[in-house]
């Protein structure tokens, strides 16, 4: 208790010195928090904008017939798998749309609307018309609409590869932000697609999204194990986006290096300031030892100082770092008002960073504490 009180008093008495080191710690930690959160937000934004509105894991047939038997059993397993946020069976097949003696290839994708919406967020992507509500209705993408000059309520004629034609009504138009999808995909009911392509009760894939997209490979292999089904193949976005992942990994490593360097500089700064403090305070420490304070309690003074500097400095740095991030996001908006990056506050990272800074600051106090252990009262008293 006395050591704590003395540590506090040493810090509050040498106010200018303490404020300077606190500002130093706060700035360093704020940069560490800012860089860490910024890189994290940037990564999540890239991933979100690249694969956010698409399935994270897809189960498809590995057999020649390209459809999955007894898919309900697989769907049941998927539904009961941890981490799975949304899933949907899909019946997908190729078709053509005629335009001025030209056949445009399209992909007819049949989904129950409610579940496809949870994967592709399609309800928000509909910019004209409405969702399909009968088995004869479809949703068409923006680019295909422009190509074919279509309107809500128009009929669209699909030519099927096996021969024959199907006419469907357009209930609305969507824009998923990806031109290749907008140009090729036609959404309709699962039953409609199954009928058109004569799949019967079968589906061509089961698609799903999961809570933590970076766990896609783990969840996929867990599913593979649970299903133990040779007739299906399970793919996840990570396997399909290796280049993106290696880019993100590079970012993550550089961010980690920056953070380590910052923490190291905080430790060195605190340790050097406290080491000077031991020299400055050696008469007082000497007399305390002469009065009967033991070496351990004398050294605790400097550990407490390191801890307190770390506590206050890192908390201030934390607030400053998060504020910097908000300011960055606020000031880097595109002309259309959308932000350059989406803000993600990883509270786990913030708490971890704070604990690391606090531990590092306390550890920084060990060097001066060891120095004070060696302080002999007789030397101090002799020198006056």
């Amino acid at each position, binding site marked *: 208790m006395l050591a704590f009180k003395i540590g506090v008093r040493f810090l509050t008495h040498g106010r200018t010195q303490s404020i300077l080191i606190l500002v130093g710690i706060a700035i360093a930690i704020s940069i560490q928090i800012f860089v860490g959160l910024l890189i994290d937000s940037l990564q999540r934004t890239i991933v979100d904008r690249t694969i956010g509105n698409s399935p994270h894991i897809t189960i498809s047939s590995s057999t020649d017939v390209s459809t999955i038997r007894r898919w309900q059993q697989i769907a049941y397993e998927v539904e009961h798998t941890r981490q799975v946020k949304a899933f949907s069976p899909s019946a997908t097949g190729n078709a053509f749309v005629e335009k001025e003696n030209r056949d445009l290839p399209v992909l007819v994708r049949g989904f129950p609307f409610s579940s496809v919406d949870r994967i592709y967020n399609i309800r928000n992507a509909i910019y004209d018309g409405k969702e399909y509500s009968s088995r004869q209705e479809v949703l068409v993408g923006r680019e295909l609409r422009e190509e074919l000059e279509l309107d809500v309520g128009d009929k669209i004629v699909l030519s099927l590869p096996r021969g024959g034609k199907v006419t469907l009504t357009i209930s609305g138009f969507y824009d998923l932000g990806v031109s290749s999808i907008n140009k090729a995909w036609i959404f309709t009911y699962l039953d409609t697609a199954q009928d058109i392509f004569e799949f019967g009760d079968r589906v061509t894939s089961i698609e799903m999204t999961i809570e933590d997209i970076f766990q896609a490979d783990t969840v996929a292999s867990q599913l593979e194990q649970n299903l133990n089904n040779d007739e299906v193949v399970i793919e996840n976005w990570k396997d399909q986006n290796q280049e993106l992942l290696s880019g993100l990994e590079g970012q993550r490593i550089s961010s980690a290096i920056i953070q380590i360097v910052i923490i190291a500089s905080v430790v060195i700064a605190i340790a050097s300031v406290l080491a000077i403090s031991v020299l400055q305070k050696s008469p007082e420490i000497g*007399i*305390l030892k002469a*009065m009967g304070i033991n070496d351990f309690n004398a050294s605790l003074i400097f550990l407490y100082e390191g801890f307190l500097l770390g506590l206050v400095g890192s908390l201030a740095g934390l607030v400053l770092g998060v504020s910097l991030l908000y300011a960055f996001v606020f000031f880097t908006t595109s002309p259309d008002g959308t932000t350059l990056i989406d803000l993600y506050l990883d509270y786990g990272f913030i708490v971890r960073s704070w604990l690391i800074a606090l531990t590092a600051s306390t550890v920084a106090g060990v060097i001066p504490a060891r120095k004070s252990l060696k302080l002999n009262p007789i030397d101090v008293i002799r020198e006056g």
Partner: protein
Amino acid sequence: MRGIIELTQVNKVYHGAVDSQVLFDINLSFEAGTCNAIIGVSGSGKTTLLNIMGTLDFPNRGDVLIDGKLVNNMTKNQLACLRNETIGFVFQFHHLLPEFTALENVLMPHLINRWRPSQEVLKRADELFDMLEITEVKHSLATKMSGGQQQRTAIARALINNPKIILTDEPTGNLDSETTDKICQGFREINRRYGTTFIVVTHNHLVAEHTDRIIEMRDGRIISDTKSDV
């Protein structure tokens, strides 16, 4: 009768480029409740002797008994505990902690092994402030006091744990004669009131004259040991 401090065949050598022996076979005993002075010129070994009696320094040879306990083989923590409970120090430089008030400085030895001061100790602190005539600076920071007030605060600090022994090294070295006289009278008053044993190392014969016994040292040896009629 066994003394409160007993030194037997104490020798001290400082090792360096050239070894230098500063104490030669010192045999001394101090009775409890007495007021003693050790005088001598610079380099006579009196401060080294005081530091050895205070367990701040150690003899190369010889035994040191404090309050009946042989200190030679004690651990650092045991010695710290012994100093805290049995010995009070007053040095030429007061070494008060400038971050603390006079009262906080005085209570510091008491708080080394306790959470908070007892009412009894606070009362004792008040008594010491009264006796040493420094009540008016009780709540002042050490840096806001005069040299004499700082030194008297250091004396109050040395006395707060009611130690059996007070060791002082040139306690009036930096003070004027009037303040020196006040401090010497303070020592005598404490000695009378609490039966505290005083050992005062000094150059100043006027200070030594306030004591019961004067030990004179030269070149690491005791050359005279006389009792006065104070």
